[in-house]
């Protein structure tokens, strides 16, 4: 079956819904369910049937494809990220995959407050990442790091304390801007989406903090990301620019939760 339909949760989008033969997501097997593809927003959603009579749907995963995400078709199976979906036939699989080959035909109008809040969050997290990078370097090579940050040491205090104070001051200022932007956006987005945004920003901050603990396995952070529908590896979390990339990946979920 390949029947176009409207999804009640994402009113702006054009959706195609496919019945699954089976699916595997993050190593877990789903014998039946639905695949929702929103080509205009490059968004995928996997749903399973739940309830005694299997008449209700529950979202297993929802994520937005990055511009250069690899979508593979093997027979009747479409593979993308950690998701492998087997559809009714190879032609149906090809049709589903082809939806991602074109540029989005229709831009979903994103509410400006969300754009502003996300931009403020990215700005803050980038600044914080730079600070975390400095302290990471400080732990490994303290003399060179401190010499590089000499301009922050302007009084008679200990240079290490001065550098901490310098970065904390900068972050406090940036955090103030972020909070102000979040407060502004909440009037339009509603409390639910705002709470989610607060939670996601905090989680990204926790990932940055984990970088300073050399033995961190990121277990807690990876589990928290899964609650946002994002799967990530330790290597991804350790890579520079991680917060910005994860914010991009969470974008569609944040947009979907917005009260607009």
């Amino acid at each position: 079956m390949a029947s176009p339909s409207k999804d009640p949760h994402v009113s702006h989008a054009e959706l195609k819904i496919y019945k699954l033969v089976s699916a595997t997501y993050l190593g877990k097997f789903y014998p039946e369910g639905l695949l929702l593809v929103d080509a205009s927003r490059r968004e995928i959603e996997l749903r399973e049937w739940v309830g005694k009579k299997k008449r209700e749907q529950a979202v297993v995963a929802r994520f937005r494809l990055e511009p250069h995400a690899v979508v593979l078709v093997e027979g009747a199976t479409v593979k993308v990220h950690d998701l492998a979906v087997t559809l009714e036939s190879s032609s149906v699989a090809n049709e589903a995959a082809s939806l991602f080959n074109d540029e989005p035909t229709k831009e979903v109008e994103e509410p400006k407050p969300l754009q502003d809040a996300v931009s403020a969050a990215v700005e803050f997290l980038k600044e914080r990442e730079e600070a975390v990078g400095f302290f990471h370097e400080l732990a490994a090579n303290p003399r060179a790091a401190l010499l590089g940050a000499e301009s922050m040491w302007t009084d008679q205090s200990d240079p290490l304390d001065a550098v901490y104070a310098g970065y904390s001051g900068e972050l406090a200022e940036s955090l103030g801007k972020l909070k102000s932007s979040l407060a502004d956006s909440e009037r339009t987005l509603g409390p639910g989406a705002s709470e989610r945004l607060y939670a996601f920003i905090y989680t990204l901050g926790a990932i940055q903090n984990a970088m300073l603990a050399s033995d961190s396995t990121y277990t807690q952070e990876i589990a928290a990301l899964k609650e946002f529908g994002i799967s990530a590896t330790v290597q991804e979390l350790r890579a520079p620019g991680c917060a910005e990339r994860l914010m991009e990946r969470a974008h569609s979920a944040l947009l979907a939760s917005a009260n607009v």
Partner: protein
Amino acid sequence: MPLCPNGHNQRLGLKCQVCGSPLSYREALSDLKVLPKVKPDFGKTSILTVGYPRLSLSTDYVGEVLSGQIDVRTPTTFQAASIRGGSWLDFYNKYLGELQRWLKIVGFDKASDRIMVVNTKDPVSVLALAALPKLEHTAVLALTADQDSTPIEQNTSYVALSLALKRGLPVVAFSESFEKEMIYFTEDRGFATGPFAMSRLLEPLVGAADDLMDLLERDLKLGVKLHCISAIVAGSKAVYGNAANAFTAQSYNMSVGTKPDEYRTVHCLAFSNGENQGEFEKSFGAYRSRKFKGALNAEFRFRQVSSPLYDVMTIYGLKSEGLLEGLADGYNAIVGSVPELNVDGVR
């Protein structure tokens, strides 16, 4: 951390792990302005050479203070641009604040033990000793001027040594002639002279920095600030026979010329395989009884090493006046012509 409305302790996530209530991150967001504290490791032992070639030592940190063509600042180098016709006072006046700042930045005060190897004839030596913050567990190995040095070198050396002693730093002195004649041979590395020999001599001392500091600081409490040293590096039974001979040989090669009545303490640091410990200890005891009967304190420290060769260092605590008296003529000759170059010119 996020808050559960029912007060349950939380970790990351969207819902409370206990009651399933949605968590609030509004207040928790302020946590992000604070970064977790990092405790940088500045190492256990820091070495700083001053006006002396950089030493090749396998220790946590080796830095240098010197004068050269231009100003250079790196994590291991503080180079002050040469001052034409400059005396120690010119470097002191121009660079004191900057060097104090650099020493703080490179965390020289953060290591557990510090050893400064200072060529006290070099004009930057006074600057470096003046810039050093008041620190415990810091010793100065001082290359000093001697009778063959010029009056200006004797003046600089006199001021640098006086400053180190005035600041309560224990000093182990090496005369210029001792340093020039220093030569060590090992089968694996061949002959080492000059700074290479100094590196070779310092290697075991750096490895035993806590023992060295302990001995020097105990002497300080007895009022003994100045020391000289004698050493056998890479010794063996084939060369010296028994341990007693190794001590006798050392008595002919002290790092500064001294008179018998100047000795106040004598200590030995021996680095050898375990089976020689008893013999070294006994021989040191005999050496002390024979030559340093009146010593206020004498201690023997042994470090076990796997090498078949041994290193033995004997450290002698001295009255301070003797060494300075030997430099006084040159010092006074300069002060007679340039009064500012007196020891009180350093704050």
